[in-house]
């Protein structure tokens, strides 16, 4: 087609005074951006192939590299921005759908940043978590209205519960979308920390069965890797209906990512595309969902809670209420900033609603219907730090799923090119030479460090509020105030404006 109209997105600047020609950058770039030029006797770069993943920048031993956005400017236009123009050029060249990875990066309002937390002064003492106990333990699963004893005075067993030492779980990411070493890092960290991780729709690799008690096994529309042993290997089962990054559409793992291990784990032929249908073709209604929930409960002998994960969409409160009535023990709501291994850009950036508003609406609705005390609520979709978690719990969540944050702790630098399979950090790739870059022992330790840091921060924040157990924060919206929010937004969030 002749000239490619696209220009490099990034420009690589190399400080020749610092560069020692060690070629570490060259060895590390799966996009083959860097090369040693024998004639020029120095390192050179092919800017157009750079995705700005920072692998070379991070590993360069002399800090000789800087990657900048291409400073070339388009004629100023608030409507036809450079990004819009480039997207059109790309599609004009390929005729394809715009693809992307990770979460929605657009400049829409982030409600977490418009919510402020409370602290004690004088009338009640704040609590020092270094000196006093501070409890974050959380149980997910169906709770009865009240405690019950049988005729002999023996406690009746509670429905199955997931016990979390910290109200954080690692969100669904399949083996296939991420590497086995990324899966191992998360599974090991979850086990060591007393949390859960989620298999996503990728089945359970044999090496991960040892972490079963800390595993939520997912059942999604493609049913990849689902069999009896799989269902019973985990501590809970999650039905994935939707994903925040791409509500309403299915998934697509390209055949080149389906190597021997992925093929075996997913139970699909090697090299074949793994296509998850948009809907579950056995769930066209809420009563169908109920049947699947109970089919899974039957299959697991009612010993494991069943979660249903949906994307936060316009009618989320009513849908969640239906899910609770349909028998789900846990409802997971994934907001429109949630990450993905691959999604059409237009869908990721324009479909769904913010998880903060969805959470407030769902919690309110479930309370109005008296269901919230029975069903657990988990939210996800860009939980970026410990303060976001505290705000989510105060708005009404029992726990959160984090996925992007966990991957960032493993090395992800948010280049959003997961769908290319060339992740230089060994995370979103199946290429053996890249996968080995993530040592799962190092990975698990980094994730554990992150969660440990966050749990200390959560404890400090709780202590400041004069609270020493997480359950006293759950749904406690008096601990929240809004800034720069409209009356309507405050009403939906169920919080007051700062100063009131």
């Amino acid at each position, binding site marked *: 087609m002749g000239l490619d109209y696209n220009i490099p997105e990034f420009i690589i600047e190399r400080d020749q005074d610092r560069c020692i020609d060690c070629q570490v950058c060259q060895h590390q770039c799966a996009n083959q951006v860097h090369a040693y030029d024998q004639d020029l006797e120095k390192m050179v770069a092919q800017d157009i192939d750079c995705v700005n993943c920072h692998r070379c920048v991070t590993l360069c031993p002399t800090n000789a590299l800087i990657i900048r956005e291409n400073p070339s400017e388009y004629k100023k236009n608030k409507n036809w921005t450079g990004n819009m123009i480039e997207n059109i050029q790309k599609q004009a060249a390929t005729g394809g759908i715009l693809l992307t990875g990770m979460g929605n990066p657009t400049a829409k309002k982030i409600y977490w940043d418009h919510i402020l937390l409370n602290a004690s002064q004088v009338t*009640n003492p704040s609590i020092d978590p270094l000196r006093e106990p501070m409890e974050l333990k959380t149980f997910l699963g169906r709770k009865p209205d009240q*405690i019950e004893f049988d005729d002999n005075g023996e*406690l009746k067993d509670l429905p199955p519960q997931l016990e979390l030492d910290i109200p954080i779980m690692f969100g669904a990411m399949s083996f296939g979308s991420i590497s086995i070493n990324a899966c191992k890092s998360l599974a090991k960290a979850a086990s060591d920390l007393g949390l859960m991780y989620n298999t996503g729709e990728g089945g359970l690799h044999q090496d991960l069965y040892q972490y079963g008690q800390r595993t939520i096994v997912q059942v999604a529309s493609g049913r990849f890797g689902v069999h009896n042993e799989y269902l019973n290997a985990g501590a809970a089962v999650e039905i994935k209906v939707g994903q925040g990054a791409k509500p309403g559409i299915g998934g697509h793992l390209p055949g080149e990512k389906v190597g021997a291990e992925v093929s075996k784990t997913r139970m699909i032929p090697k090299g074949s595309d793994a296509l998850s249908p948009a809907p579950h073709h056995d769930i066209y209604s809420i009563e169908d969902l109920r049947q699947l929930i109970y089919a899974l409960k039957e299959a697991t002998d009612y010993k494991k809670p069943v979660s249903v994960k949906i994307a936060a969409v316009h009618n989320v409160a009513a849908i969640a209420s239906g899910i609770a009535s349909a028998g789900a023990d846990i409802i997971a709501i994934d907001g429109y900033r949630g990450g993905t291994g691959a999604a059409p850009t237009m869908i990721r950036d324009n479909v769904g609603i913010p998880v903060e508003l969805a959470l407030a609406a769902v919690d309110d609705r479930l*309370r109005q219907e008296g269901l919230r005390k029975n069903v657990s609520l988990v939210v996800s979709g860009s939980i970026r730090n410990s303060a976001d978690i505290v705000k989510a719990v105060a708005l009404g969540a029992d726990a959160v799923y984090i996925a992007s944050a966990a991957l960032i702790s493993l090395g992800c630098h948010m280049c959003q090119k997961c769908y290319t399979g060339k992740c230089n950090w060994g995370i979103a790739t199946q290429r053996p030479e890249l996968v080995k870059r993530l040592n799962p022992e190092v990975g698990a330790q980094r994730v554990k460090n992150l969660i440990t840091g966050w749990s200390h921060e959560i404890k400090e924040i709780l202590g400041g509020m*004069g*609270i020493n157990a997480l359950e006293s924060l*759950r*749904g406690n919206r*008096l601990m929240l105030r809004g800034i720069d929010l409209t009356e309507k937004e405050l009403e939906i969030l169920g919080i007051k404006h700062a100063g009131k």
Partner: protein
Amino acid sequence: MKGSRAEEKIMSGCAISGILNRKGNRFSGEEIIDSIALMHERSNGLGGGFAAYGIYPEFKEQYAIHMFYDDLDAKEEVEYFLNRHFNIAVAEKIPTREVDKISNPPIIWRYFAMPNEQKLSEFGLADDEYVAQSVMNINANYRGAFVVSSGKNMGVFKGVGYPEDIGDFYKLEEYEAYLWTAHGRFPTNTPGWWGGAHPFTLLDWSIVHNGEISSYGANKRYLEMFGYKCTMQTDTEAITYLFDLMLRKHKLSLESAVKAVAAPLWSEIERMEPKEKKIATAIRTIYGNALLNGPFSIILGHKDGFLALNDRIKLRPLVVAEDEERTYVASEESAIREICSEPEKVWTPRGGEPVIGLLEGREEVWA
């Protein structure tokens, strides 16, 4: 009521005191007034009150409904409601005397009443539930009216002023009870309304409370799912309803209810015997939102006695003493020594450790 629609929960410091005669022998209100008066400095004159159990032996089968009214219109409206829903044996003004320091009291009235049989069967409710719902209805929906107490053979006397003046105002020396609790209030803001004083009640549960419940927002929204309406915007009201929910509606023992509101730490649960551990874990799992967090000492009064309790890490004072017939509990030891100079036993309970004072023969209420 004035101030009853305040936006915020009302924060307060306070003094509390309680005396139980375990044999059920009744005694006048003079001692409890002396006890709470000694802790004058812990109040600021913006609220005082008393709960008295056993004061209406002649009407002990009837619900004794104590009411505040802002004006006669409010009284008329509520009485219209009460007359339709209850058979009222007696309706009378609660006797008071002129006290210099007490000004602007509301209209204070009491009714001895039983639920209207026909309405009761119409709604298909037990007596207590019927009364509880009526109380909630009046407090939420009748402007200028407030139910002060609604139990049998008990009553609450409270208002704006120092507790000793409130006691004087209500002529408490003329009442005889086997259990008295008292409260002197030090609110950090000044709504100055009579309904805001302690004790808070529902049926024969009464709560006097020193402290602030940081978990109020969570407790309130939890209670709402069970039909409770927290209209007073005070955390003390929520405590009262939590006990009503667990003890009356869910038939929990006092011991189990304590394990919910002042739950043992997970580290303690970890060390329990398997059976006890299972129960404690189940209680925290189911009743997590009933956990009271933040500094508090409370006395829960009821017909069988009292429960006194501190928050789990003891951020408010609480002292207990015993002599031959009585159990005393107060914010300060001096308030006990004032009325019982040589108790047989004096101790300070640990955080979260319940102090149970029960009438003889009613021990089964505990476990």
